[in-house]
């Protein structure tokens, strides 16, 4: 990598001997072997683990769930066709999602002009706004401290179907880059380094996006999750 190549020819990556692929975990390697051998179960397991996350990521590039499903299907075709030639310089998942993002970007570019992104849709506020506020910066005693702190939640409500619906709907309204980050980090439980690599952003930028997204999701729950007055 260090010495510049003579003549303008592109630097070709050296072939990777089987079994020594640097980016691959033992598990990845096994999955790849099975899929290359035509094992349907291994393929379906890969689908099961990744499909929903792929749809969510695709949704941040295209305007509707239907189109996102099409994009993901297209990506799966690319993955299946490329898998025999995949040499494992990066983890399998990183490679798969790179194919997905390419498909989604291409499709997103075509759709962008015709349909508005769902994130631009008006916000429906069927829950009371979260009540917390801060004191103004010129407050004589406690500038920037709580004027009205967050009200306690009825925690058990956070794990029912209505909470899931509210979270999903708020995530759909986030700007695409925030949506991508919260989807991969908080729904799919990816490491920050994987997310940064896929999206081509810095760790610091990733944290800013994640924080904004989490803040909005918390806020979307706050008024609704408030413990009822005794």
């Amino acid at each position, binding site marked *: 990598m260090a010495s510049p190549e003579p003549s303008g020819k592109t630097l070709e990556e050296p072939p990777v001997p089987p079994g020594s692929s640097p980016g691959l975990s033992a598990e990845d390697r096994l999955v790849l072997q099975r899929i290359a051998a035509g094992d349907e179960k291994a393929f379906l397991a890969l689908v099961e683990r990744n499909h929903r996350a792929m749809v969510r990521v695709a949704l941040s590039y295209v305007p509707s769930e239907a189109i996102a499903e099409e994009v993901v299907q297209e990506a799966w075709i690319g993955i299946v066709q490329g898998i025999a030639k995949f040499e494992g310089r990066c983890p399998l998942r990183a490679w798969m999602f790179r194919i997905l993002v390419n498909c989604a970007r291409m499709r997103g570019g075509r759709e962008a002009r015709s349909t508005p992104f769902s994130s631009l849709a008006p916000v429906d506020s069927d829950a009371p706004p979260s009540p917390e506020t801060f004191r103004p910066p010129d407050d004589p005693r406690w500038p920037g401290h709580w004027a009205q*702190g967050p009200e306690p939640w009825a925690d058990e409500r956070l794990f029912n179907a209505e909470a899931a619906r509210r979270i999903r709907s708020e995530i759909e309204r986030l700007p695409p880059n925030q949506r991508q980050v919260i989807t991969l980090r908080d729904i799919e439980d990816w490491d920050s380094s994987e997310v940064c690599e896929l999206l081509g952003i810095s760790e610091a930028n990733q944290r800013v996006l994640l924080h904004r997204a989490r803040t909005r999701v918390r806020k979307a729950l706050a008024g609704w999750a408030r413990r009822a007055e005794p």
Partner: protein
Amino acid sequence: MSAARPTDIACQEVVELLTDFLEGALDRKTRTRLEQHLVLCPGCTEYLRQLRLTIGATRRLSEAELPEHVRTALLDVFRHWREGA
């Protein structure tokens, strides 16, 4: 609900630092200031608790079932490739 005693960091700042805090990305000095603030401030402590709950509840969205038609369609893609390969 405001802090019971003066601290050198305002609630409004604390709230903005919480993801960095949870990610372990704060420098030691800032982390210490933030932890001291949390000890004294029930409002920020509750906010942090709610943020953690939010993260936990968001995580549960991954448990959704894969629809049967998706499974069938992708299996077709796979079989088509296998037969062509």
